[in-house]
Structure formats: C-alpha cells, structure tokens
C-alpha cells in the first residue's frame, strides 16, 4: 500500500513540474507573440518599396529608412573591418598559442567580463577616445570603432570556444606528421573551427545592428537628411531612426517606428537563423 502511495505522489510531482515548465515557456512565447502582433498590426501597412527608398522627412507618410539603412550598413562595414581581424586573431592567440599561466587566466576572465559590460559604457568610452580625443566627431568611423570595441569580446569568446571544440587528436595527428604549429593551425584547426567562428561573428553582427545606447552617446542621434559618402560623414542607423520616430507626437510617426521595428526584427531573425543553421551543420561535421 505504501509503495503505491509513494508512487502516486512522485507521479504527481512529475506532472506538476511538467505543468510549471510548460506554463513558463508559454508565458515567454505569449509575450513575444503579443509584441509581434502589436507591431505587425501597426506597422505592416507602412512597409512598401518607398519606405526603403525614401529619405527622412517632416511628413510621416513620405518618410523612409533609406539613410538609416545605408548608415547601418556603412557602420557595420567599419565595425567588422576593425573587430573581425583583431577579435579572431586574439581568439586564436589566447586559445592556441598563449601559455596557460595566471596572466592568461586573468586576461580570459576580463574578456568574459567585457562581454557583459553594459553597452552604454562603451558609448562613453567611444565618446571620450574616438569622438573627442581622436577628433573623429560624430562620424561613421567613430561609431564603427565604438561598436567594434563592443562586439570584439563576443568574437574573441566565440573564436576560443570554436577552437576549443576541435579535438586534440587532430592536432596530435598533424604534429605527428611533422607539421609546424602554424601549419597545424592554418590547415587543421581553423578549417575545423571555421563554422563556429562564423556563427559567433553573425551573432555579434546581430547584436551590433540592434545597438542604440552607445550610438546615441557617440552622436548618431541627429537628423541626417542625406546619404553618408565617406567614413568621416555623419550618419544615422535603424534603431536610432526608430528611437527618433517614437519621440514624435504625431501618430503617423509611431506607425513609421513600428514599420522600422519590423525591418530591424527581420534582419535580426534572419541573422540568428543563419547562425543557428551554420552551427548545426558545423556540429554535425566536427563530431567524431
């Protein structure tokens, strides 16, 4: 009798836990769905070709995100130009070459911490160093450098994780053949780690395109009625444009903001989707 009783109570606990887990998942999904439906119902009507090709305007129905898109792409270009080589090289050095002493551990912990620093702090750093001290002003270059600082820790950590996942038996095989450290890194470790590194890079891009706070600080929050032509020009980006529109009193600009959010979300979902796809393919390839 007691055995049956115990069994039932365990089964009850099991079901209760399952119910709560389901409930929590449901809450998360529900919030996301409400957000999406709200944004879609407001903004979808404004999504058309001219929304992508129009410059910002005082009239909401003539306003578009052209400058914001061009600004975002140019900003990303400079961000990646700086962050990719430095981030990936640092990751390779720390994981593959650096000796494992107390200094390496110190650097490791600090890079992990850097990845968690609030982004507005990077904005303040960028303002002080790039905008003021280096005299770059409110330029794309200053913004790109700031965002590069922001995503570099993410790229370094992703690179290290990807390299760490390459089985040591492959390095042994390569060294056993008489390959040097560089040959082993170039021909065996990096090709095997590439999928993981790329996944991290894409996720860092998706982080960068959504960033608003640091860019407000380094001066992207300006009315830019023209397309930037060089790295020292002023610029605006999509999140900033959305932020700008939401602060307008007219209802029409709120609709514009909703439409802008849809575009931004589409970018983020697309990038994250690619990253997940790449990661799955890479994991299947690397598993032994």
């Amino acid at each position, binding site marked *: 009798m007691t055995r049956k009783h115990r069994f039932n109570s365990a089964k009850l606990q099991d079901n209760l836990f399952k119910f709560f887990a389901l409930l929590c998942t449901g809450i998360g999904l529900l919030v996301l769905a409400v957000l999406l439906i709200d944004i879609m119902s407001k903004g979808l009507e404004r999504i058309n070709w001219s929304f992508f090709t129009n410059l910002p305007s005082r009239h909401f129905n003539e306003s578009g995100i052209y400058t914001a898109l061009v600004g975002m792409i140019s900003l990303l270009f400079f961000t990646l130009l700086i962050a990719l080589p430095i981030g990936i090289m640092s990751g390779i050095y720390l994981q593959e070459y650096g*000796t*494992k002493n107390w200094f390496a551990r110190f650097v490791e912990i600090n890079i992990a911490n850097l990845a968690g620093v609030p982004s507005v702090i990077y904005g303040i750093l960028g303002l002080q160093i790039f905008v003021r001290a280096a005299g770059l002003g409110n330029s794309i270059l200053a913004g790109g450098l700031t965002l590069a600082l922001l995503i570099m820790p993410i790229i370094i950590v992703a690179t290290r994780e990807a390299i760490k996942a390459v*089985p040591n*038996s*492959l*390095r*042994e*095989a*390569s*060294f*056993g*053949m*008489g*390959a*040097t450290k560089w*040959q082993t890194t170039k*021909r*065996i470790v990096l*090709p*095997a780690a590439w999928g993981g590194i790329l996944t991290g890079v894409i996720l860092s891009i998706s982080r960068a395109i959504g960033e608003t706070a640091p860019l407000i600080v380094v001066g992207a929050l300006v009315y830019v009625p023209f397309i930037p032509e060089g790295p020292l020009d002023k610029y605006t980006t999509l999140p900033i444009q959305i932020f700008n529109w939401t602060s307008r009193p007219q209802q029409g600009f709120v609709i514009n903001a909703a439409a802008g959010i849809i575009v931004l979300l589409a970018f983020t979902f697309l990038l994250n989707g690619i990253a997940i796809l790449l990661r799955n393919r890479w994991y299947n*390839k*690397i598993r*032994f």
Partner: protein
Amino acid sequence: MYKLESNNLHLYYGQKHALKGISLGIKANSVTAFIGPSGCGKSTYLRCFNRMNDLIPNVRIEGEAFIDKINIYGRNIDVYEHRKDIGMVFQKPNPFPKTIYENVAYGLRIIGENSKSLIDDAVEVALRQSALWDEVKDSLNKSALTLSGGQQQRLCIARAIAVKPSVLLMDEPASALDPISTAKIEELIYQLKSEYTIVIVTHNMQQAGRVSDKTAFFYLGELIEYDETRKLFTNPGKEATQNYISGRFG
C-alpha cells in the same frame, strides 16, 4: 646497428617519475611490441621517439634517445623535420575532417609539394600499401569521416606512410576496432615490416605474440624484460613478466 635506441632515458611529468632509465635497441625492419599494464609508461616511451611528449607542459627528459645513431634530443635536431621521418598511428582513428585524398596528401602538402601527378601517385601507393585502395578508389573526394572505424585507421596508416618515413610508431592501433578490422591491421603490419621499422604498443598479448619479433615488457616505468617474442611468452626470464602474461595482474 640499431635503428632506434635509448640509453638510460628518464622522463618526469612534473614530480612524477614516469620512465626510470630505459635502455633498449630496436633493429631496422623489425616489429617490436611494448606490453604492460595501463600507466606503465609504454606509450610515453613510444612518444619519446618522435618527441610528441614535447607537446605536454612540464615534461622533463634526461638521458639519450637515438635514431640512426643521431641523438633525437640533441641540440641541432629540428623536431619538425625529425617527425617527418617517423610516422605515427594513434589509438583512436583520427582522420582530418577533409577528403580521403587530402588526408593522405597532407604530409606532402606540408612540405610544400605542388606537383599534382606526384601527389596522385603517392596517394595511390600509400592507399594500396594500407590495403584501402580497392575500397576507396572511387570515393577519394568523399569526407574521410564517412569511412568505418577500421577503414579510418587504415587511412591513418596510409597518411603516415605516404611521406615514406623510416619508422612507424603505433600506439594501440587496433584497440578501438572490431576483430575483423584488427585482423586487417595486423596483416598490414606484417606486410609493412619489409619497408619500415615498426614499434607497436598493445594491450592485447595475443596480438603482440602474432605480429612482433621482439617484445618489451614495461612495469611501473621500468623496462622489466626485453627479448625475442617467442622466448618472452614461452619462457620469460622474470617472475613479473610471467605473472603479467599469464593474466595474474594488470
């Protein structure tokens, strides 16, 4: 004249004294088996000959090891060049995540060989020698990871012999394989003996008995006995050897 030789070789992992003064000589074109319980130092000793222990931090080596009378740990030895002359096959098949062809071509690629016809020939010869050619000749551009475990291990042997080393070190090459694949590897070892000096670490005493000319028994970092395989297995000179081969410990 010994192909491989060591003289009072000591190895320390930090404080741990893992090899305690090993001296032995291995003749060219012979198969030598290292046997002994786990942790006895046989794999560590094997790896002294291609300096793979260099990759492990805090390893200290004293004494001498020779290949063709040249000190492997001498000052003017280029460790990368040295390893090119010594092929190694590991316990777990470890093909690169590349094509079958590129796996075998790897050794030639890293010495900067560019001639396609030369590499093609070397790949075919190596795959034939490792008895894999007939199974893979139509799928050379497939990933090596699509092969079975036994095929992967023969591919690793092909990769090692494609650059024509003079020595082949095998660290328990069949311990992760089924009996049929094991038999193929053993057959291969017998075939390769005419061209290479082969040293094989094994946990399987029947295997040592089948493939080797001489056998060395290691225990707790010491070389207990080294003799003709037939004599060591039928009439061992030391009691510890007798106990080990009769399965009383280890």
